[in-house]
């Protein structure tokens, strides 16, 4: 009997002491992801899978897929599992997707969202849960500015997408220095992305000595743009300065198509220079808008160049097929790589095969990213999560080839700090 008790005691003691001696402990202030032997490392994507902006989601998802593929789907000898959520391009979608992701304690971080509206709603939930939200295409300035400055930043947010403070500024610089514009009219669609971008563009334009004659908005879903275009024509007639007019509309398809196409029919806007942004810099834009309206139109947007990028495109054609449908696949690829590298850096493996990833340690590791050579340039993350430095931006112009030969993307005609770029003749 005595023997039995001592055996029992020994057994109990082993049960209590064993995990303490062999497994890693979590000493992270906001918690850890603890994976048993053989568990996969989970990252989530929250992209727009349905709706009008699904092309943005396909674009970023491809970038993540290739980043994972290049590691043979493995990290630290474990499988990388991707949990896909549809965040849509709206606050409601972002919130719902974030709730689902936050309830899964094994997810280390999220690549997403595509749209600033979805990111704004998702961020508080994911930040509270200790997770990372790493965006490839949410560009609104408010996301990386702290609440004291009127922003919505919360710890855990990072992006490889450029901040629209850069994009709006280079758009204004191009309009004034290269196009010689003196008057500007802007149209947004009420989304944080479009509203933020046109505001930066208009402010910079004014600072540089131009006159902003009109700032208006349309609804998502409007098809008749004649009223707002007529309003702009009236503003043009009423403005005191004379000189080239730029119409900047950083919105999405199909409202962007309607504005470009219908501007032809509005007297007074015949000579307006049409200028869009990365939201409508998509392959279907030229065909849908028509050559009459869109030939020669300018777009501000991300410019990714270089040998590594050419290799990436070849991989894309091989794995997914064709060309990426929008301009943020390389950003998603870089974001996924920075996240996975950071996980590899901070994960601690115990003797019994458990893997412990500290959530605060992970954030610190990403924030410490400096001089990372990605496809989108040299990335250095700021305290508030801006990893892009705004160097990978430029202005594109539609040429005949995009209409007749299905060429994509259009040629880059201007780079900040460089000026006009000679077009490559093919």
């Amino acid at each position: 009997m005595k023997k039995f008790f001592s055996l029992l005691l020994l057994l109990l003691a082993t049960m209590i002491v064993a995990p303490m001696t062999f497994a890693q402990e979590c000493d992270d202030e906001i918690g850890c992801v603890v994976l048993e032997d053989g568990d996969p490392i989970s990252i989530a994507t929250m992209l727009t899978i349905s709706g009008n902006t699904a092309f943005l989601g396909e674009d970023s998802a491809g970038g993540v897929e290739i980043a994972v593929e290049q590691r043979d789907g493995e990290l630290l000898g474990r499988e990388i599992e991707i949990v896909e959520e549809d965040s849509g391009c709206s606050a409601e979608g972002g919130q719902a997707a974030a709730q689902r992701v936050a309830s899964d304690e094994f997810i280390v971080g999220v690549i997403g969202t595509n749209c600033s509206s979805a990111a704004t709603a998702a961020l508080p939930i994911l930040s509270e849960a200790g997770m990372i939200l790493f965006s490839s295409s949410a560009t609104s300035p408010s996301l990386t500015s702290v609440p004291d400055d009127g922003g919505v930043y919360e710890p855990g947010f990072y992006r490889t997408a450029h901040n629209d403070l850069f994009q709006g500024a280079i758009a204004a610089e191009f309009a004034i220095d290269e196009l010689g514009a003196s008057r500007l009219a802007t149209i947004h669609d009420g989304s944080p992305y479009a509203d933020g971008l046109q505001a930066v563009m208009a402010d910079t334009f004014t600072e540089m000595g131009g006159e902003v004659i009109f700032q208006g908005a349309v609804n998502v879903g409007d098809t008749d743009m004649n009223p707002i275009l007529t309003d702009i024509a009236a503003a043009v007639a009423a403005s005191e300065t004379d000189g080239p007019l730029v119409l900047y509309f950083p919105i999405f398809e199909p409202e962007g198509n309607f504005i470009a196409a219908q501007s032809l029919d509005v007297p007074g806007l015949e000579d307006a220079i049409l200028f869009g942004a990365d939201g409508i810099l998509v392959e279907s834009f030229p065909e849908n808008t028509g050559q009459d309206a869109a030939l020669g139109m300018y777009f501000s947007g991300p410019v990714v160049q270089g040998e590594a990028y050419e290799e990436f495109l070849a991989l894309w054609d091989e794995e997914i097929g064709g060309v990426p449908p929008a301009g943020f696949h390389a950003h998603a690829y870089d974001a996924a790589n920075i996240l996975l590298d950071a996980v590899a850096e901070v994960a601690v493996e115990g003797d019994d095969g458990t893997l412990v990833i500290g959530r605060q340690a992970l954030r610190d590791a990403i924030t410490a990213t400096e001089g990372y050579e990605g496809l989108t340039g040299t990335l250095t993350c700021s305290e508030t999560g801006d990893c892009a430095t705004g160097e990978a931006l430029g202005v594109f112009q539609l040429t005949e080839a995009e209409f007749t030969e299905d060429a994509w993307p259009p040629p880059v005609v201007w780079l900040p700090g460089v000026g006009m770029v000679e077009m490559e003749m093919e």
Partner: protein
Amino acid sequence: MNQNWIEDFSWVDLIINVLRVGIIVLVIVGSFNTLASGRFTGEQWLSLVVSGLAQGSIYALIALGYTLVYGILLMINFAHGEVYMAGAFTAYFLADYFNRTGFLNNYPLLAIPLLILFAGFISMMVAILLERVAYRPLRNSPRLVPLITAIGASFFLQYTFRGFYGSGFKSYPTIDILSGSIPGTNVPLNQVVVFIFALVLMLGLYWLVEHTRLGKAMRAVSEDKEVSSLMGIDIDRIIVLTFAIGGALAGAAGVINGLYRPQGVNFFMGFIPGIKAFTAAVLGGIGNIIGAMLGGLFLGVIEAVGPNLVLAGLGVPGANQLKDVIAFTMLVLVLIFRPQGILGERLAEKKA
């Protein structure tokens, strides 16, 4: 006398009267300010009105489908916007084919009616299928049941067509003879053509309902189903035909819309026009055919002119983003003055 006044006093009446006066004052002040500022020229107003009429005639054609079905079944067919989408989206592929072969621009007078017929046929088939599968089994259930089914059917159709044709945007080809504007004005020719096409279809429907045996049967069924069946009218057949006519008009509207506003063809394109057309039908007096036509045209013109005329005059910033506010405020305004709509529902004793 005084006593009576106090007894008759009702807060609801007072609030409604204050609303009536308030809205009228706002509209008058806004319009006056804008017109006095001379910001827009006469030509610009003309172009706004014409583009509003073109948009309104599309609303009207779709609204007829709502109103016909309501007239007979007292049911709102919320999937009707998707019936419109089905025709417009499917006919896009035929239009694209015609364009590639050169048929569209060589024989536009033949190609356009063919496209309209094709889209009408597709939408008609979808509408008939909808009636058979989604509504007929529920005809005797409470009124809420088919309403919810309609919303489900609407999602079903959207995502089925997304499965067929993908989620990207398409554009109808432009037709050479319709481009350019009416000589001497800024009014685009295609908008006028759209208006005329729609008007012909609407008059055709009016003639059908008022002057044919089928129309007589439809009117009889909408008055009283039981009695008409006693008179030897096949109720099921009339209901199917009503859905078919409404669907065909919606499909035709899809192509007519593509003639002057080619962009934005995708699986979601029926949603907003569907809501607007429903508004138009209510505005004109639901169940009333002429009412739906007037309601559609009225809504289109108000949407086009309203923001620049009323809201800009009141100093509202970003007036054009509030187009829908104007449209639905007008709806509220009309319903405050005439709860039955502009022309009123044609009610049989039994319905009222």
